């Protein structure tokens, strides 16, 4: 139990996928202008990450390994993730057309969010079991969501700040993301002792 908790905390805070590993920066910059959109993105990514972790592990463990097809894993995982993302998109469009509009291209682009594939591959590399894979995926998703929501509220505040012309918009967002990463370095080495 403690192991699982540490795994989740590690994936969400210490080795935060965005701020420590710099994975998934595309939606991090792209969908952080408005809180509603960011919340939707955080939930969608959490959903995709968790499901993809579980399914990719199952496929790996019970299909690819028994059949000796380990070399197909990247292809199979991407296919799987694309399918889950498509399903998510159908769901979002049905439940909230506004959110669908807000997320726009970034919703199908969860497929290419390297954090998702990264988690699937890391699960295999670190020889996680099914439960561990799910927890790791959910922890990574929660960490992504947390970073995204914090970043979005920061950016909303910066919207009304008197930022120099040269830094308006994405530049100041990137500086902010950099300083967030600097702050997250405080978690470096946590639990190493």
């Amino acid at each position, binding site marked *: 139990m403690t192991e699982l908790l540490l795994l989740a905390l590690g994936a969400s805070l210490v080795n935060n996928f965005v701020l420590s590993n710099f994975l998934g920066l595309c939606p991090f910059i792209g969908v952080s202008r408005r*809180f509603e959109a960011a919340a939707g993105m955080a939930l969608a990514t959490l959903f995709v990450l968790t499901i993809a972790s579980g399914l990719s592990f199952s496929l790996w463990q019970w299909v690819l390994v028994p059949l000796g097809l380990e070399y197909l894993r990247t292809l199979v995982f991407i296919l799987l993730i694309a399918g889950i993302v498509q399903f998510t998109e159908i769901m979002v469009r049905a439940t909230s057309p506004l959110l669908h509009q807000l997320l726009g291209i970034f919703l199908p682009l969860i497929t290419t969010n390297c954090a998702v594939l990264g988690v699937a591959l890391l699960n295999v590399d670190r020889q996680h079991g099914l439960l561990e894979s799910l927890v790791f995926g959910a922890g990574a998703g929660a960490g992504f969501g947390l970073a995204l*929501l*914090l*970043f979005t*509220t*920061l950016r*909303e*505040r*910066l919207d009304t*700040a*008197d*930022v*120099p012309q040269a*830094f308006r918009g994405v530049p*100041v967002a990137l*500086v*902010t993301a950099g*300083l*967030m990463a*600097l*702050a*997250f*370095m*405080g*978690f*470096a*080495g*946590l*639990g*190493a*002792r």
Partner: protein
Amino acid sequence: MRFDTSPAPHVIAGYTVPRVMFQVLLALAPAGIAHVALFGPGLLLQLSVACVTALLAEAAALRWRGRDAAPALRDGSVLVTAFLLAFSIPPLLPWWLGALGTALAVLLGKHVFGGLGQNPFNPAMVGYAILLVAFPAEMTRWPVPMDVDGTRTWSELARMSFAGFCGADLAARWDGYTGATALDSIRNGLGLRYTLPELLARGDIAGTFGARGFAWINLAALAGGLYLVSRRIVRWHIPVAVLGGLLVPSFIAHGLDPGIALGPTLQAFSGATMLTAFFIATDPVSAATSDRGRLWYGAGIGLIAWIIRTWGGYPDGCAFAVLLMNLAVPFIDRYTVPRIYGRQP
């Protein structure tokens, strides 16, 4: 007769930003005296470099934006940043690192976001964290404080500070005069499987009520902080919450395992605890803005500092704790809007 028709109110209390800032500088004086007495005059050297750099950086940033620099230089906010950074860095730091840290603090921590009132992060802590990450060796080398070994004189400390300030190789001539801070020594000792009572018994780490050297600085900072609270320049919420967030878990942990966990007194009077609680975390620009939000914000800082001190990779987590809670401030503000008169909760 004709009169001017400016809008109401027609009077103001006249308690202005520059006066607030200079009160803060004044309240830092006791901690500064303790610092100089225990660690030599390095602080004064760092202060002078930091202040000059900060004023120059502020003026340059405003000139670049085509704004009038004079009011901003007079408002004293940039001097507060310089002071806080100078108090945080080791007094032996080569001057160019102090200058670099200050310039980064003012330019990257403050003016990229638009200057006074706009910066989401505490500028001094931005500068400090960058220095700490980039120059870990220089940033953790402190003079051995005066109250550890009576055989060293203050004038030797002064000469060493000057040498360090100029960038001389301290290891060659002053080995034994420099060392890790108390929190760092404890952390290393625990890493080597010593127990806390064993480490404290050595005598060079902790004195009667706190870390050697730092205990007095913390006490002086506490006095200055209480002055600010009594003048209502700083409201009590953040300091109380920071100390609560740090001391409550350390009290519990110390009770559970006194062999490893630092007790609340040692936590309170070591590292940058009091400086953080009363001067750094209370920077209003980068803090949460409602009373309830400030309690959450302060408690978060205390708790994260405790977590980093206990399990983290850095001996004193105060700077990172402040930065981490800074980035949560807009989120906290979003959910801690107080109830408006006449509205349902």
